[in-house]
Structures are given as structure tokens and as C-alpha cells.
């Protein structure tokens, strides 16, 4: 789960990291009054779950409150990579001497959190890593000890020469680790970490992704979820306990298991179709989940055919069959449904489906090919 810059800054502030003040505006007038309260120059920043906000024109410097109002009017409602800007952060502009990068993420290969720092801040760190890896210093943190003081110093020492700046940055690196762990994060980033002419080190941008598996024990972080940035169907799917990602095609897919769901989408493409979605109904086969899945798939107006691909292991095929029949009773489903069921309680499932007038396939290739033909009007 991604959180917004202003939310990540709240987490950082709580850990003691020096972050300039800032407030959220949803109207140009609010932006104006926040800017007036700070006085002087401010920055108006779009709050969307996307990188490249600056390039898209979503970050603007304003010399006074009335210009802040103008910028907010332009940025609010703007579309950045398909996301509509509904909030802007208004924050005092800082005098910048240098910009550095400090980030931490879970490294799959090292199986632990790993810091990356670079004196080249304010730019795309992936590009720095690819083109000039010597400009990045990395450190994997032993999860049993956390980051040790000399390690934080070693990282900070790569950024600055001035001992006063190194001291401040070391402290910030330790605080970032604390914030990362206490937020249940998978990635936390300060880009840029600036130095000011007055010799201060500050975080003027913040990014954080949260591990979804942490949220059950971190309600204060779950409360930061912004559902306005995702399609309503994805919110509904999450609430129903389904994994769903909306795509642009017309073949609706309902599958048990993530790997099989991806392989099914790929097979739709192989047979010349386009999948309308990724949907994993999960292992437990509660008929209500199947009903919810069908409601979500049919709420997408692009869907022209619906395919079920169920390989029963823990999932019982008869439960899925009952769900399909139940859903067709409860909701009016226009697109044709084709079904493949095999595995646990397959025979019972076929009986249930036949009685309700459905036929079923046992091969994955057959059902996908059929669904693609139906979507294409054949």
C-alpha cells in the first residue's frame, strides 16, 4: 500500500526526522490561506500515488499566497499518470545548498532491509543505480540488531564532508530505520535530503510503501489508505477478501490462485484476446466470494465474456459451482459465462452446473479459447 507524501512526512516527523511544516488543501482558497499563514515563498505539491509529479507539472513554486492559489487551481483536478489530483500539500520553500538521496527497502536477495544513499539527490535513483552505481553506497541491516551507530555514520560519511552535516545525517538515517520498521514498511525514501545555507539537514520529500501483511497490527497506518486513488471495483474486491486488478481488456477472468490467474490471463492473450482483469478468489471457497467476484467483474462495462478457471485443491469445486448459480439468481449477468472446473469435488460441481443449465470444460486451453471467441462475438 502506498501512502501520500504528506502522510509519509507525518511518520517521519513522529520518528524525529527534521521535516519542514506543511498542510493539505483541497481547494485553491485553502491553499491560499495556508500560504498566507507561512508567509514568503511556498511549494504547492500534488498528492498522488505516482512518481514523476514534478515533470507532470504537479509541483510548483509560488512567490506568495495569491500565486499559491493559482497553482493550486491548476494542479487540483490535474491528471497525473491516470490519477486525478484531489489534494495538494502547501509547504514553505527551503533554501537548498545540496540534495542527497537516502532510501531503505526490503532486498529480496539479501533477505533484509537495505539502505541506499547517494550524494546525487533529487533525481531518479534507479537511473543512478543503472548508470553510475559507484555513486551509491549500500548497506544491508541485520534485522536482529537494527542499524548500528557506526553503520549510520558510514552511510552519512558518503554524503558529506562537513562533520556537522555527517552527524545530523547519521541521526536521520537511524530515525528513518525506526520509522521504516514501526510503519511496517517495504520502502521508505527521502529524495531529496537537503542541506541549507544555515547548515541544517532536512527531508523535503518523503515516500513510503507499506507491506499489506503488516496492516492487521497497525490500524493507524491502515487509516492512511486513500481509496480515491483506486477504481471502486478494487476497493470492493479488497473488502470481499479478493485479489483483483482491473485491466483494459474484455475477457473477465475468475481464477483460484495467483499463479494460475496470471497464467490464465496470459493464455487469453495467447488465443488473441485481452484479459479484463486479474482476479484470485483465494483458497477458501465460500460461495459468497464467488458472488462478489461476479458482481465486480460484471460491473466493468468492457467485459464481453466471463471465464472461470478453477483447479480445486483446498478450493472445493462444488462451492464455486454453488456460487456461480447463486450469483446468476441474485444479479442479472449479461455476458456469457464459460467454466472450467477440475479437482476436489469436481463431479458434484458438474451436477450442480448442469442442473442450472451451464456446461463446463475440464481443460484450461478449451475454456480460454472459448471465452476469447465469445468476447469477439463468435
Amino acid at each position, binding site marked *: 500500500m502506498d501512502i501520500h507524501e504528506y502522510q509519509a512526512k507525518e511518520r517521519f516527523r513522529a520518528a524525529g526526522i527534521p521535516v519542514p511544516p506543511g498542510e493539505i488543501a483541497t481547494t485553491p482558497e485553502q491553499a491560499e490561506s495556508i500560504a498566507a499563514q507561512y508567509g514568503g515563498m511556498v511549494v504547492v505539491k500534488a498528492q498522488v500515488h505516482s512518481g514523476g509529479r514534478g515533470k507532470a507539472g504537479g509541483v510548483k513554486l509560488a512567490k506568495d499566497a495569491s500565486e499559491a492559489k493559482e497553482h493550486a487551481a491548476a494542479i487540483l483536478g490535474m491528471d497525473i499518470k491516470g490519477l486525478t489530483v484531489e489534494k495538494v500539500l502547501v509547504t514553505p520553500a527551503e533554501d537548498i545548498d545540496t540534495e542527497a538521496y537516502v532510501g531503505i527497502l526490503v532486498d529480496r536477495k539479501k533477505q533484509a532491509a537495505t539502505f541506499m544513499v547517494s550524494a546525487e539527490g533529487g533525481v531518479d535513483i534507479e537511473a543512478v543505480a543503472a548508470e553510475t552505481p559507484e555513486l551509491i553506497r549500500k548497506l544491508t541491516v541485520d534485522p536482529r540488531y537494527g542499524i548500528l551507530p557506526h553503520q549510520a555514520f558510514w552511510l552519512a560519511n558518503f554524503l558529506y564532508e562537513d562533520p556537522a552535516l555527517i552527524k545530523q545525517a547519521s541521526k536521520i538515517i537511524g530515525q528513518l530505520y525506526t520509522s521504516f520498521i514501526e510503519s511496517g514498511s517495504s520502502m521508505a525514501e527521502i529524495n531529496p535530503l537537503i542541506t541549507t545555507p544555515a547548515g541544517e539537514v532536512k527531508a523535503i520529500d518523503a515516500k513510503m510503501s507499506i507491506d499489506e501483511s503488516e496492516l492487521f497490527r497497525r490500524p493507524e497506518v491502515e487509516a492512511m489508505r486513500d481509496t480515491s486513488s483506486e477504481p471502486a471495483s478494487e476497493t470492493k474486491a479488497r473488502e470481499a477478501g479478493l485479489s483483483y486488478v482491473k485491466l483494459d481488456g474484455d475477457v473477465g477472468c475468475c481464477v483460484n*490462485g495467483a499463479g494460475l490467474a496470471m497464467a490464465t490471463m496470459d493464455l487469453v492473450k495467447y488465443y488473441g484476446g485481452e484479459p479484463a482483469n486479474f482476479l484470485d478468489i483465494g483458497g477458501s471457497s465460500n460461495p459468497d466470494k464467488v458472488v462478489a467476484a461476479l458482481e465486480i467483474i460484471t460491473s466493468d462495462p468492457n467485459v464481453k465474456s466471463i471465464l472461470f478457471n478453477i483447479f480445486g485443491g483446498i478450493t472445493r469445486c462444488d462451492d464455486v459451482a454453488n456460487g456461480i448459480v447463486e450469483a446468476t439468481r441474485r444479479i442479472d449477468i449479461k455476458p456469457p459465462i464459460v467454466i472450467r472446473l477440475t479437482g476436489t469435488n469436481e463431479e458434484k460441481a458438474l451436477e450442480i452446473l448442469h442442473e442450472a443449465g451451464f456446461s463446463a470444460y475440464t481443460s484450461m486451453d478449451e475454456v480460454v479459447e472459448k471465452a476469447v471467441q465469445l468476447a469477439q462475438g463468435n
Partner: protein
Amino acid sequence: MAIFIDNDTKLVVQGITGRDGSFHTREMMAYGTNVVAGVTPGKGGQTFEGPNGKAVPIFNAMDEAVAATGANASVIYVPPAFAAGAILEAADSGVSFVVAITEGVPVLDMARAHAFAKDKGVRVLGPNCPGLISPGKSKVGILPGKIVTEGPIGLVSRSGTLTYEAVFQLTGAGLGQTTCVGIGGDPLIGTNFIDCLAAFEADPDTTGVVMIGEIGGTDEQEAAEYVSAHMTKPVVGFIAGRTAPPGRQMGHAGAIISGASGTAEDKIKAFEENGISVAQRPADLVGLIQDALA
């Protein structure tokens, strides 16, 4: 022979009295797995009734279960909040192999658990995995026993039901398996492709390997390099997620294309460059492995 589990596997089930734990313990026992003990804190001294009149003693803690039964492996069906703790306890109890089925374990918990298990020299499979099965010998986890059959193919996969699909196709074509291993869909897993490939290479009964990967991370790319550098047995593969959009988690916590890394194209390319034939469809795996073994 087989890898990781066989007739000598003596299994403890952690979370044996839960809904999933009790169901799958019966399934494993019915398949012939030697389940010697169960652990549920607070239910020590009780007995778990298995199929065919077989009973399994329940203990409060792993060390008691291992001391009383000589168990050498455990499987974990406890809820996400307690799963990492269960792995730590198992790794400290004397068993050498721990299979974690639980999905949704916090990743930072797993970083600690993996570091601890590594220090203890204990192999962890998973978490968020379907477990493994050595046909005719033992099954640990949730893979359906009906779809496998004994034979010479080793299978390793990050997925659950996609593994079933592939095994179903192999079995249908008369290609049996030595062991089928689901390594799990999480970002931090204890046993990776290379561990399984090395074990299959060393197993005299395995003549060829099917490797099923998916988007996210670079485990498949490293495995592909391992195959060309260290394996004499043929390996064929499949990668799920050619149509997955970047930046979105596709069900599995680890199945996400971040930036330019972890795409299906990258992985397919790495497979092909290292002599691993890649199936366009799961059904094509059968022909590829038959050709490779011919």
C-alpha cells in the same frame, strides 16, 4: 529417491487443531505421511484423531514434541500474526526442515525468522507456499495427492494452483514426479529455485526438471545462470505474468514488477539464454520435457 521429504520424514504439525491444520493433517495422513505429533499451545496432552483410527499426540510446544517423538520436520498452519514465531520455535527445536504454509506473514518478521533459521542450519520452505510432495512417499502441505504419480521429473514452482495445473498435465501424459515443490509467492522465502535445482541435480532418480516462475524479483534469472553453470540434467520452464501490468501486486506479495525489474520478458530471456526451453502455455511443458529427455 526424492528431495527434502521421503519415507523417513517424521512430521510435527504446528497448529494441528485449527481449521486448516486439522483438515490438511487428515489429508496428509491419508496420503501416508508419517505425522508423529501436533503442537497447539494449551492443548498439550490431548489427542488428534486422524483417518483410519490413527491418533496423533498433541503437545504444548515444539521442543516437547521433538523430544517425545524424534520428529525431524514440521509444517506450519498457524495464522499470519503467529507464523514467524512458529518458525523461530521450530528452528530452535531440533527439526531440520520447516514448511510454512501461512500466507500474509509480515515481511519484516520473515527477515528475522530467515536469519535465525540460517544460523541454526534449518531449511525453511515458504512461507505462503503449498508445500511439497514426493509421490508414493510423503506429502507435507496442501498439494492434492490425487494429481501426482511416481516418476522421474522434478518440479519446482512459486505458485500453488499453477503447480497443480502443471503436475496434472505431466501426470496426464504419463510423466511421473520424484518431488513437486512449491517454494512460495512471498518476497522473502527460505528455499529458492537454486536450492531445489541443486537437490534435483543430486537426486539420482530425477532425470529432468520443470521450473515454473512468475513476475517479481530476479530469482528466476539467477536460477537460469545456475542451470547453465552447474546442471547436467535438462530443465524446461514456464513464466506466468506476461500480461501483468508494472507496479501492481498480482495476488502474491512477491509478484510485482518494480521499475524495470522482474518482468516476464526478462525471465523468459534469461531462461532461453541459459538453455532452458520456455513453454508458451502450461500444456506445452509436457512436449518440452519429453523432447528434452528424448
